[in-house]
């Protein structure tokens, strides 16, 4: 049982480049989330999804886009990378709101 898998684990981007952070889960969870975590800070919710085809903004959505075409996958897209997007990104999923959420191992992104 793989749980929540994020790829890549590390990435260095140049300013203005674009990339997609991949997240997939094999638990048939409806709810999926993307967070960013800056050094020494808590997690900030970027986007979330309550099911395939449904996404909504979190606290810090600017500069990011998401899609949810399947239950398993929830990719996060950065179109024009900026140094302010240097952070660790975590994807998570949960089957129901009152059950535990499972997190991926994170993607460490540096924009230079």
């Amino acid at each position: 049982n793989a749980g929540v898998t994020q790829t890549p684990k590390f990435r260095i981007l140049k300013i203005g480049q674009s990339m997609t952070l991949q997240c997939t889960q094999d638990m048939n969870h409806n709810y999926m989330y993307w967070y960013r975590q800056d050094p020494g800070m808590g997690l900030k919710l970027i986007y979330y999804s309550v099911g395939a085809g449904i996404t909504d903004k979190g606290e810090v959505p600017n500069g990011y886009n998401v899609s949810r075409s399947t239950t398993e996958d929830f990719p996060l897209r950065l179109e024009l990378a900026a140094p302010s997007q240097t952070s660790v990104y975590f994807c998570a999923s949960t089957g129901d709101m009152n059950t535990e959420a499972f997190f991926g191992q994170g993607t460490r992104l540096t924009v230079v």
Partner: protein
Amino acid sequence: LAKTTQPISMDSYEGQEVNITCSHNNIATNDYITWYQQFPSQGPRFIIQGYKTKVTNEVASLFIPADRKSSTLSLPRVSLSDTAVYYCLVVSLTDSWGKLQFGAGTQVVVTP
């Protein structure tokens, strides 16, 4: 979404009990209280969840008074490996349905 307030940091010695109190004054009737633990360079991990009174598992206990405006996570006889950030979340099944938002958390440092 109910706002949570918890101490920024707490220090403890090995073998002691650590109690972290979280305030959530505007918690709604259908909201649950959930705690997560995060080690450096890892995603958060679910510890415990409760609705009212007391919940205990192999890791921790969660005490919730009758008014539910606060909750206390109790870690018995901590060890060095309990050094982590602990997050208190209020999970709403009605308002802001689907959102899972983290605050700043409490950094717990356990020393020998």
